């Protein structure tokens, strides 16, 4: 069954139409990239899906269920995890504690005031697993706010992963990164997608990353879907080149 289905979603802010009649589906195991020039409405679109604000019109279905009335937290609990354009982490806690909190909440322990030895070991193991996934094992006791930008981005993705999401939404994961960091993050995303069959919705400006990773690409411009297709189709599309790639080159 289709994992995420957005039907004709629009969002107006006063007279500004940030998202205009956008439809999009994500199948299980798909990696979908959303690209588009600044101000195209990509992040607003993410915010509609994750529940920051309600669409002015249109519907959003997750796993066949209309989630329009659910709060952000409830959507997370259904299996949507996301990262943000500006890294959102717990800066004055250690890397391990950042992941521990996420792992504990994911295990349904957020109201527990005591943990037995068995569960504690389970959580410890999960934290270690996540740390090694992001190559952060040797930095686990550092405050996450003291890490490099790239490691902070990685830590945020790991926190989202700790939730064992069914849909991972990444808002410009490589923004502000150098080549090596971009490569590392892209490799992590590819591994999650290929090995764990994780469904990913990705906003990204780095075209190398997009065209390497995505199964399908949706191009947004001025709030509307300009084109949608495989990386090859998008690369060949004259509409896209004229409206987006061409403009970026100029």
């Amino acid at each position, binding site marked *: 069954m289709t994992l995420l289905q957005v039907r004709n979603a629009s969002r107006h802010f006063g007279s500004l139409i940030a998202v205009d009649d956008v439809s999009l589906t994500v199948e299980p195991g798909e990696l979908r990239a959303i690209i588009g020039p600044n101000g195209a409405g990509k992040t607003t679109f993410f915010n509609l899906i*994750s529940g920051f604000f309600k669409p002015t019109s249109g519907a959003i279905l997750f796993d066949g269920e209309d989630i329009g009335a659910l*709060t*952000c*937290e409830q959507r*997370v*609990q259904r299996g949507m*995890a*996301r990262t*943000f354009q500006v890294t*959102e*982490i*717990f*800066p*004055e*806690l250690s890397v391990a*504690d950042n992941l*521990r*909190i*996420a792992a*504990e*909440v*994911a295990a349904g*322990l*957020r*109201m*527990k*005031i*005591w*943990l037995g030895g068995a569960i504690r070991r389970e959580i410890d193991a999960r934290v270690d697993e996540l740390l090694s996934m992001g190559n952060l094992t040797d930095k686990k006791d550092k405050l996450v706010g003291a890490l490099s930008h790239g490691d902070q981005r990685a830590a*945020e993705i790991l*926190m*989202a992963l700790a*939730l064992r999401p069914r849909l991972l939404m990444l808002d410009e994961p490589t923004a502000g990164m150098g080549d090596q960091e971009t490569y590392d993050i892209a490799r992590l995303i590819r591994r999650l997608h290929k090995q764990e069959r994780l469904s990913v919705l990705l906003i990204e400006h780095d075209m190398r990353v997009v065209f390497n990773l995505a199964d399908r690409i949706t191009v947004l411009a001025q709030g509307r879907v300009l084109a949608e297709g495989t990386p090859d189709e998008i690369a060949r599309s004259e509409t896209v080149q004229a409206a987006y790639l061409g403009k970026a080159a100029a």
Partner: protein
Amino acid sequence: MNKAQRRAFDIAVWALLLTMPYWMGAIGGYTELATRIVVMGLAAMSLNFLLGFTGVLSFGHAAYFGLGAYGTAMAIKYLAQGTLLSMAAGIVIATIAAAIIGALIVRRRGVYFAMVTIAFGQVFYFIAFRWNVVTGGDDGLTGWHRMPIDLGLANLDIFGNDKAFYYFALVIFAICVAIMAMLLNSPFGRTLLAIRENERRARFLGIPIERHIWLSFVISCLFVSVAGTLYALLNNFTDPRALRFDLSGNFVIMAVLGGMRFFWGPLIGAAIFVALQDYISSHTENWMSAIGLVFVLVVLFFPRGVLGILRGRSAE
């Protein structure tokens, strides 16, 4: 600071608390002053559960402190109840009030939250101030005193014996502090740290922020009301100043002075505050300006509080 150092610090704190009545005299204090430090320390640590470990500033905690005090005093005076039952009455009343008010204000943030906590706090202050017949009004509630506690085998004379009351207060303090420490080291406690650190990330881990802040507020108010009951018993008296917002401000000052990111910080802050208040007020009416000066200097030069200075040194 590593685990061993932290344990050593814990042991040092408890050793000082356990022996305080015996060396207070040598440094110019007295047993009642020691008790006041423990009581105010508990109040400041309770406030800090919300302020330092959930990241939510309340300027109205005196309301729940005062409700605990008045509840206890009234139960003893009008219902002729024993000490423990009267304390329970004060705690229950204050906690119910906190649960209701907390539910109303939990969506406010930052300055707005702080302002409404003051506003609700002042409501209780004016009730106590105006309702002379029941509360004694401005003169306070007199004509009662704490009762000895019947332990079955023995009688604990907390009324006649200053030291007995000190150790009674210390036992209550220890229970409250142990529960708070346990909560903060649990998954629930870590969700509070998460909210303090980054509300948006906490929400997008699936934590219902408002519900957790509400719980933290109620827990914090519960323990501050315990301190309030002890305060009334200590003085055998309570008056509307136990409810007023300047006392709420004093709790915040104690927490920040000692170091609100540290578990023991508010206790250190309370000890400094109460000792300075006692010493300076015997020389001048304007004791608050001296404390204010100390506070300003600490905040300007050591924003992490007195414990922040000590810990910073030990880290180097």
